[in-house]
């Protein structure tokens, strides 16, 4: 051992290991691993959780080799904009190689969380059979598997605690996959099947729920009929998190009181989610649990604001509210006056393509919440109009914002009163909210806003930009500022080659950059790829693939995805994704 680090030997490895277990983030552990060889060894052997933000950044086998004792892995695949169909189908993000390496190297793996990956039924089968202590399977925004794969998970994972399927595209070919949970299976704590489209045999589900006394989270899918839901709730009074699927009022007599009493039994309920199609008349059935709710994710189509306001005004302990814009400004004003503990607000558009009558949700709603809810940290807000003064006021009201995502639905919308760009408003947000980590901007924006973001957003880690800016300078401001930027995604902005090439080093300090419909040419990509060998510069050529060498330098690149990697160009890219 080096003389300089002889103090390391003062304590046995187990002490260091124990000390490291207090380090909260992977970044801290990575730093620790750099101190000396001993710490590197101790750290890697004691790492239990691994987070891979980009599945192509590292070879699965290498990751498994370096950290042989991992018990929990989180892996993310496709870029965020894939959620909005901006990547092509079959882009990649396959989980197969990861699962195979993990099955070999981490047989004791207990938790696996995959996001935006393509997971086949084979993957699920291999995972189910290889990980004897498998406890948690969480798939978010994934695709490529079917209920047959879920059946093998149910059948083989004897100690499964959590099956969390969040917004996946699942092919339904095995109707009774739930029945594959053996009768002896009682360990379930979380069951989220909200994304499944098919019918479920409710009595099998009921039996499963009855024999799992620790079940805390149950999120049903939309085809559970109301009476069955009531039956299920009676069997699981210990629920903390309930997703009602889709509640439809069928006008049965006595149904309201059954529903009301079912909810009243849920004395521990903290989270309620689902689609409320039952209409306002059934809504009072949930009044009894409102006081205890800390999170409410209710999509509704048929409730007017007054009834919704009655619900939220009873939710005095609400910390998280996700709702449709049907809640309108009035509803948000009610939220502002009742939900003083609110931390997170997400408002989704009920009518994103503007096909129906617009709802009365404007900047006033957000402004009201910002002034009434002092603990507000996270905002996602879809609306059709905004003003700089409202943004300034919001920034003043909530300097603790960590996540601010504003989507003004029509691109290039200016401040609707002054007709000016919204530079000043967003500028205020980044200048006053010093802890801002995530930002999405929209509306009419010039290069000025990027100058402010680059200069002031010192903690910003993720930035999403669309239809904004005037010149390359905008991108340059971002890349040369924003010290902590990790993910940048841009679409339809006039940003081009110069900013990219001038800031090539920055790209290696970031996890990834997505640019689509900007002004980037192939020549710049080639230069960038040559200069930065540890970046993968991927170009999506929608015209059917073909050899990249033949394309001229001035050829426009429609979709560009750049990410840092130590694994070299990926081998599973489809023919129209070309690594430069």
């Amino acid at each position, binding site marked *: 051992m080096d003389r300089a680090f002889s103090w390391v030997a003062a304590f046995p490895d187990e002490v260091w290991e124990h000390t490291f277990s207090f380090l909260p983030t992977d970044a801290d552990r990575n730093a620790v691993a750099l101190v000396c060889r001993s710490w590197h060894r101790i750290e890697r052997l004691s790492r239990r959780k691994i987070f891979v933000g980009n599945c192509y950044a590292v070879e699965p086998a290498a990751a498994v080799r370096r950290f042989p004792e991992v018990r929990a892995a989180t892996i993310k695949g496709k870029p965020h904009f894939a959620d909005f169909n901006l990547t092509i189908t079959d882009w990649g993000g396959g989980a197969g190689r990861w699962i195979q390496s993990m099955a070999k190297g981490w047989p004791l793996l207990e938790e696996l969380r995959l996001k935006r990956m393509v997971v086949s039924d084979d993957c699920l089968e291999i995972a189910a059979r290889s990980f004897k202590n498998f406890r948690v399977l969480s798939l978010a925004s994934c695709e490529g598997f079917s209920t047959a794969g879920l059946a093998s998970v149910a059948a083989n994972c004897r100690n499964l605690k959590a099956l969390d399927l969040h917004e996946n595209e699942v092919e339904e070919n095995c109707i009774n996959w739930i029945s594959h949970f053996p009768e002896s299976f009682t360990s379930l704590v979380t069951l989220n099947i909200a994304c499944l489209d098919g019918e479920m045999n409710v009595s099998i589900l009921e039996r499963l729920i009855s024999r799992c006394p620790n079940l805390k989270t149950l999120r049903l899918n939309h085809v559970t009929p109301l009476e069955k839901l009531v039956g299920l709730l009676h069997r699981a009074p210990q629920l903390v998190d309930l997703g009602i699927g889709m509640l439809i009022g069928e006008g049965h007599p006595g149904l309201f009181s059954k529903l009301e009493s079912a909810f009243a039994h849920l004395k521990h309920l903290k989270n309620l989610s689902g689609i409320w199609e039952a209409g306002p008349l059934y809504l009072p059935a949930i009044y009894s649990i409102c006081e205890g709710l800390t999170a409410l994710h209710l999509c509704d189509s048929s409730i007017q604001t007054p009834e919704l306001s009655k619900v939220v005004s009873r939710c005095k302990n609400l910390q998280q509210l996700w709702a449709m814009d049907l809640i309108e400004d009035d509803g948000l004003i009610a939220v502002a006056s009742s939900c003083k503990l609110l931390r997170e607000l997400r408002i989704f558009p009920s009518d994103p393509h503007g096909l129906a009558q*617009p709802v009365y949700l404007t900047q006033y709603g957000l402004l009201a919440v910002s002034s009434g809810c002092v603990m507000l940290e996270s905002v996602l807000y879809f609306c059709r109009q905004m003003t700089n003064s409202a943004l300034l006021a919001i920034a003043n009201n909530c300097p603790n914002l960590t996540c601010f995502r504003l989507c003004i639905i029509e691109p290039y919308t200016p401040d609707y009163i002054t007709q000016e760009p919204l530079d000043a408003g967003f500028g205020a947000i980044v200048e006053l909210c010093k802890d801002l980590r995530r930002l999405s901007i929209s509306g009419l924006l010039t290069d000025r806003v990027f100058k402010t973001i680059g200069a002031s957003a010192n903690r910003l880690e993720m930035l999403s930009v669309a239809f904004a800016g005037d010149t390359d300078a905008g991108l340059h401001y971002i890349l040369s500022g924003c010290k902590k930027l990790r993910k940048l995604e841009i679409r339809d902005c006039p940003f081009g080659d110069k900013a990219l090439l001038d800031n090539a080093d920055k790209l290696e300090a970031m996890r990834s950059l997505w640019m689509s419909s900007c002004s980037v040419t192939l020549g710049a990509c080639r230069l960038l790829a040559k200069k930065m060998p540890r970046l993968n510069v991927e170009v999506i050529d929608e015209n059917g693939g073909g050899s990249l060498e033949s394309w001229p330098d001035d050829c426009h690149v429609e979709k560009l995805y750049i990410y840092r990697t130590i694994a070299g160009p990926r081998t599973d890219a489809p023919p129209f994704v070309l690594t430069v």
Partner: protein
Amino acid sequence: MLEGNRRRYCGGVASLASGSSASKATAAERDLSVEDGVAAGVADGEEVENDRDDEEGLELGLTLGAARKSSPPPVPWGSCLRILTAKDLPSLASLAPPRSPSASSVSSSSVTNLSSGGTGMKRAAESASPHVGGSPQPPSQMVVGWPPIRTFRMNNFFNQSKDNTPETTTVASKKISASKDQSQKDQGSRRMGMRSSMFVKVKMDGDPIGRKVDLAVHHSYEALAVSLELMFQKPMMTTNLPAALDGAKALKLMDISSEFALTYEDKDGDWMLVGDVPWGMFVETAKRLRIMKISDATGLSRSTGRNPSCVLKPYGGSM
């Protein structure tokens, strides 16, 4: 409470324009104008903003309820304040990216096939007036991935139950009313909802790239066919296709004389020729689309014996 109502503002105006003629031609024009009236209406939202003071009287009471103490009413995108005529409407074939700032005017396929100046939509920063383009813009619904909502979320919002008849599903109207009692009355009727987007995968024979198309944004087979033609058409392919009439209808997916046939996989897993069933039913049952070469399409089942090109129904007429 069908589609007519859902778009009643624009529909109302457009039908005024076309009168109450029952002739098929006018009805077709009305269909087109209603469909794209929505489009024009959305894009015209900005223009409307400017003229708001003049035209409040014409706003059909849309924003009256929203009047706040000292604030202007929300952007009334939806009120079509001009009488729409055919020449106002963007020809669906000419959805090339315009120079005007409203980037929303680019159709999904054009976005992907652009080879020059992908943005081309930069606006002059100094101009204070917003996006008053010379020609009417197709709405932002034609832009891929905008607004940025997970398609999964929107596919499942207002999802259908097995009880719903086709008429009341995708094309049913959302309860839209400034008055509360209207909505109370609606409570009793069949559950209605508006599916905001419904993406299905589309693959064309000979093209390695699969895409997705949003059925909910289209309201007829023609619109879908044109969208698909734009999506799959590539510059190098035009030489292989029959000469285009009126622009980009080269693939002529709905034309029996075309090289290609549009087929879909239904809920039972059978592949059917597109066009035989009413549009609403089609949207309900279609899981996937495939553009087949005609030579492969001969063995397909068809739900009725009718000629598939005979689907030009008046908008709302088949529902």
